[in-house]
């Protein structure tokens, strides 16, 4: 009898990710984050994110792969502000992946929730299904005023209208790091060799990135921190980002 239960559990949770060599993860220390939004501008510079303009912004159509959420706590005069960077959680059981009718988003060997731009037909189901609302749609083909387009990063494709986009953990940097590691006598990517643009520019080092399959990685240790928790854990999307609550000295 137990084999059937075991088989069903194995079927229900194939657990692809133990077998893959990398499982990229990130920890965000809310005690360090000061809400300065350097990560947002860094991400915009690295990933060719367009400027949507004033009236599009007024219609709530901004494109910000990582955004800072603000939560007031208490009332004047003992009022507190809590910042929370919110980006794609690269969930292991992502509700958006099963929803896409054309496999424009799936879970690759790096444990990343990939978004394939030329495959997307724009049904936007993934954005409805994402509880974190971190998927952004190209409502128009956005343009860069001349000569701003010279700044576009050649490693990241520029999206046309009708395509969904989201944080990819700077997959172009991960690919380059894996290629360099492969050329260097086929070793694995060491901890700290690849970091996304937001982690690299965060001035308070609140964001830590690494391979959570590797027990010595800094991120794995941080993930086991007693302050660690996952946002909307009760929806059991098993996100790959662990937030660390604000401590009280």
């Amino acid at each position, binding site marked *: 009898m137990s084999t059937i239960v075991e088989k069903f559990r194995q079927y229900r949770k194939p657990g692809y990710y133990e077998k893959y060599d990398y499982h990229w993860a990130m920890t965000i220390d809310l005690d360090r984050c000061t809400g300065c939004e350097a990560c947002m501008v860094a991400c915009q510079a690295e990933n060719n994110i367009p400027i949507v303009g004033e009236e599009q912004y007024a219609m709530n159509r901004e494109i910000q792969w990582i955004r800072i959420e603000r939560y007031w706590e208490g009332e004047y005069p003992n009022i507190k502000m809590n910042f929370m960077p919110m980006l794609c959680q690269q969930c292991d059981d992502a509700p958006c992946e099963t929803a896409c*009718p054309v496999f424009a988003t799936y879970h690759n060997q790096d444990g990343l929730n990939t978004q394939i731009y030329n495959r997307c*037909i*724009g049904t936007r189901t993934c954005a409805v299904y994402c509880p974190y*609302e971190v998927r952004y749609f190209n*409502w*128009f083909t956005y343009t860069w005023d001349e000569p701003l387009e010279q700044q576009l990063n050649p490693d990241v494709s520029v999206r046309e*209208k*009708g395509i969904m986009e989201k944080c990819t953990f700077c997959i172009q940097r991960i690919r380059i790091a894996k290629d360099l590691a492969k050329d260097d006598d086929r070793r694995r990517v060491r901890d700290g060799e690849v970091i996304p643009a937001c982690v690299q520019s965060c001035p308070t080092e609140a964001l830590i990135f690494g391979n959570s399959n590797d027990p010595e990685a800094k991120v794995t240790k941080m993930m086991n921190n007693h302050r660690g928790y996952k946002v909307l854990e009760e929806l059991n999307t098993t996100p790959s980002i662990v937030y660390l609550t604000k401590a009280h000295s």
Partner: protein
Amino acid sequence: MFDHGQPTYAEVNKDIISTMLETGPKYWILLGSTMSLAGIFFFMPWIYQLFVGVGAAGMNRNAVWGTYLSNFIFWIGLSHSGTLLSAVLHITNSPWRKSIYRSAEAMTLFSLITAALFVMVHVGRVWFVHWSFPIPNQMGLWPNFRSPLMFDVMAITTYLTASSIFIYMGSVPDFAAVRDASTGVRRRLYAVFSFGWRGTAREWHTLGWAYTFFAVFVIPLAVSVHSIVSWDFALSAVPGFHHTIFAPYFVTGAIYSGTAGIVTVMYCLRKFLNFERYIGQVHLDSLGKLLIALSLIWSYINVLELFTTWYGGSSFELEALSFRMTGFYAPLYWEMILFCAFVPLLMLTRKIRWSWNKMLVISILINIGMLTERFIIVATSQPRKFLPDAFGFYVPSWIEISITIGSFGIFMTLFLIFIKWVPSISIYEVKETLKPLRRDA
């Protein structure tokens, strides 16, 4: 069955086929206006949106589904009229369905086509929408059959084929009747349409069996189509969508709005093609009773949904519920409740249920209520999901409103074409309901 006395077989033929052959100037004016309505209000904004991008509509980051999808569901809902009338009542062979089931099926087919068009308008890159069909393509990738949208694609294509075969096979004998009653090109054309039907016992026997099988297949299909359409919402984790009651809720809503649609169409057929003799009081009365039953089921499910949400007490669901009932769209919500739950109760009195004009008004109100219901589900649950700082707002833009109006144009155009090409009342079924001719009579 017939308010103004029994017509003879020949009169039946003449009456129904005459509506097809003689086309007065009024018909052309009506056809021209509906085609321009469709063209100006539906296709031109759509072409504009194709050039500019889906941003022309009012959707934004957190309400990525807008009126296009709620219209899609409304039109799929309307398509359930045909299934119910022709298939279910055919199986239970109730006599009163016989004269109205053909145009009900036509309503099914044309609202399905309009719904399919809405998918094209809704999708961001319509020039790659063929990737969602399981046909080989440039990238060698096959669609993801785990996605509710793939269920949609499969269910709606199946439903489209099934209902078009269903209506076509049902009207083959009538095509033969038209063939015999017409000359020249039209005769040769209908000879082809009717596959050379002669009405022999073997043909009637095979058609009877095939038709029954079609009906048997279409009923579960219709139920599955609308539950699959509800699963686009129900399989998500969004607080306003994620209820297990959604499948029966949508199926009931669909049959309910479909039946209301039939009453509207019957009224128009009676008025413009003066079928007073064929569509009588009994149809109106039975449709009215059906509407009352369906509205009670619908209200029950609505109350059930509110109760379970309130009883559950999760902050997400309660917030979605409170925004729906007291937020910006609260008047729309209460208007929906009024039109779909309370107005139909008027039909309990015979005085209202028997007057065609009152029933027309009630059926139109019901359908307006159902359109708002779909819009409410889409517009009030999406902007307020889990993270309060990401709450947003959704207001349809002029393009969405004009495309919604235009979609009725498309439906009416198709229906007007149908009236001239296919007998809108099934000739042989009406004859069946007449008392057979007796030698001594």
